[in-house]
C-alpha cells in the first residue's frame, strides 16, 4: 500500500484534455502554436514513459555502473542541449559544455551524497538520480543563458571587441565585462527563484515529496539542501563554460578568432 493515491494511465487522459482548451484558443486566434504544443506534449509523454521504464530497471538492479551510465547519459544530453539553445555557437562548445556540466553536477551530487545523505549504497539511485537530474536541468538553463549572452556580446560585435584589442587591451581586458554579464544573466533564474521560493512558488521537488507523503518539515530541509546545490552548480557550470568559450574564441596572442576558424553556427 502506497502513502499516496495512484494516478492510473487512463486517468491521465483527463489531464491531457486540459490541453485541448489551449489548442482551440490557438486555432481560433491563429497563433500557430497548436502544432508545437502537440509535438511538445507528445514528446513529454513518450520521454517520461521511457524514463519510467529505465528508472524502474535501474532502481531494481541498483548497480553502480547502471547508475553511472544513466547519469552520464543525462549529463551528455543536458550539455548538448545547453549549447544548442544559444543563438550563435561553435562546435567545440558542445564538448566543453558536456565536460563542465557532468563534472560540476557529479561533484556537487557527490558532496551531498557523501557529506549529507550517506545512503547505502552511496550510488543508491533513489537519491543520486533525482538530485543529478535537478542539478543538470538548472545548470542547462544557466549555461545556455550565460553562453548565449557571452557569445552574442563578443561575436556579434567584432568591431567593438577588435577596437579594444587594437588600442592595446589584453584579451581579458576586452572580454571581462562580457564574462561578468554572462554570469549575471546565467544566474538570474536561480537567484530569482531563491528570492521568492515559498512565497510565490512552491518548489516542485518539495511539492512532490509532500504529495508522496513526506512530512512538510522534512520536505523543506530537502528543498533547502537542493537549492544550495543548484546555486553552486549553476554558478560553477556557467562560469566554467563561459571561460572555456573565452579561451576558445580568443588566442593567447590576444586575437579574436575569425568566424571561419571557429566554425560559427548561427540560428
Amino acid at each position: 500500500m502506497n502513502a499516496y493515491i495512484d494516478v492510473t494511465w487512463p486517468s491521465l487522459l483527463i489531464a491531457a484534455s486540459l490541453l485541448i482548451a489551449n489548442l482551440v484558443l490557438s486555432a481560433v486566434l491563429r497563433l500557430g502554436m497548436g502544432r508545437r504544443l502537440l509535438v511538445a506534449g507528445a514528446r513529454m509523454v513518450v520521454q517520461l514513459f521511457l524514463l519510467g521504464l529505465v528508472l524502474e530497471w535501474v532502481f531494481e538492479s541498483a548497480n553502480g555502473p547502471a547508475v553511472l551510465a544513466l547519469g552520464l547519459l543525462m549529463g551528455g544530453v543536458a550539455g548538448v542541449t545547453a549549447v544548442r539553445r544559444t543563438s550563435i555557437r561553435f562546435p567545440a562548445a558542445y564538448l566543453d559544455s558536456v565536460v563542465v556540466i557532468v563534472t560540476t553536477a557529479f561533484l556537487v551530487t557527490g558532496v551531498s551524497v557523501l557529506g549529507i545523505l550517506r545512503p547505502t549504497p552511496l550510488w543508491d539511485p533513489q537519491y543520486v538520480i533525482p538530485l543529478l537530474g535537478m542539478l543538470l536541468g538548472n545548470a542547462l538553463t544557466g549555461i545556455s543563458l550565460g553562453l548565449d549572452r557571452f557569445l552574442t556580446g563578443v561575436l556579434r560585435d567584432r568591431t567593438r571587441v577588435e577596437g579594444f584589442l587594437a588600442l592595446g587591451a589584453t584579451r581579458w581586458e576586452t572580454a571581462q565585462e562580457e564574462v561578468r554579464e554572462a554570469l549575471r544573466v546565467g544566474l538570474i533564474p536561480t537567484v530569482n527563484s531563491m528570492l521568492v521560493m515559498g512565497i510565490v512558488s512552491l518548489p516542485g521537488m518539495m511539492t512532490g515529496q509532500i504529495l508522496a507523503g513526506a512530512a512538510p518539515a522534512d520536505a523543506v530541509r530537502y528543498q533547502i539542501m537542493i537549492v544550495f546545490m543548484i546555486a553552486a552548480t549553476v554558478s560553477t557550470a556557467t562560469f566554467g563554460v563561459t571561460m572555456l568559450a573565452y579561451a576558445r574564441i580568443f588566442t593567447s596572442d590576444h586575437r579574436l578568432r575569425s568566424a571561419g576558424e571557429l566554425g560559427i553556427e548561427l540560428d
Partner: protein
Amino acid sequence: MNQSLAAGDRAVLTGHSATGKSLLLRTLCGLDRPDEGHVLFRGEPTPGHDAPGFRARVMYVQQQPLLIPGTVRDNLDLPARFNVHAGREISEAENGDRAGDLLAQIGKSADFLEQRASVLSGGEGQVVGIVRALLLDPHVLLLDEPTAHLDPATTQRVEEVVLEWVEAGDRALLWTSHDPAQVDRVRRGPRIELGGAA
C-alpha cells in the same frame, strides 16, 4: 609582396574596395593571422604574448573606430583602463591639454570633448579615433581610410595633424586611401597598390 616601412615614411596603401586593405592593416597589428609570410617589427617577429604592447606601438585605427557610451573625453581616456597604458593621463596630459589642442587644430571647439559619443556623426567618430591614437603616441600608425566620412576642409586639417605627428619624431605612417589627390598629399615613401592578383 615584400614591403618595409622605415621611420619617417608616410606610406600609402591603395586599391579598390575588397582587395584586402583592411585585412593587411589588421594583419600588421596582429588582429588577423597571415595565411603565409610574417610581419617583422625592428627586425624581430611580432611578439605573440605581448600583442598588447605591440599594438600600443603599432596602432591600428579602424575605419569606424570603437566608441564607448559616454562623452568624447571618456572615449579619449578609454585606453587608460588598459594595463599597457597604465598610469597615463591621456586627455589631461602632462604636456598641457594636448587633446584640446589636437581637436582645435582639426576645427573642433572645446565643448566637443563633453559631447555624447552616441550623437557623433561618422566623421566625428573618425576624428575621435585618430586623436585617441595620436594621444597614445605609437611608433607606427595604421589608418584605415581615416577621412572617408569627412568633409574636404576637415580632411585637410586631419592630414596636417597626422603629418605633423610623423615629422615630430621617430615615426611611420601607413594610410589607406582611394583618393589620388590625397595620396599625392600624404605620401612620402612607399606606395602599396593592392588589387588583381594581390
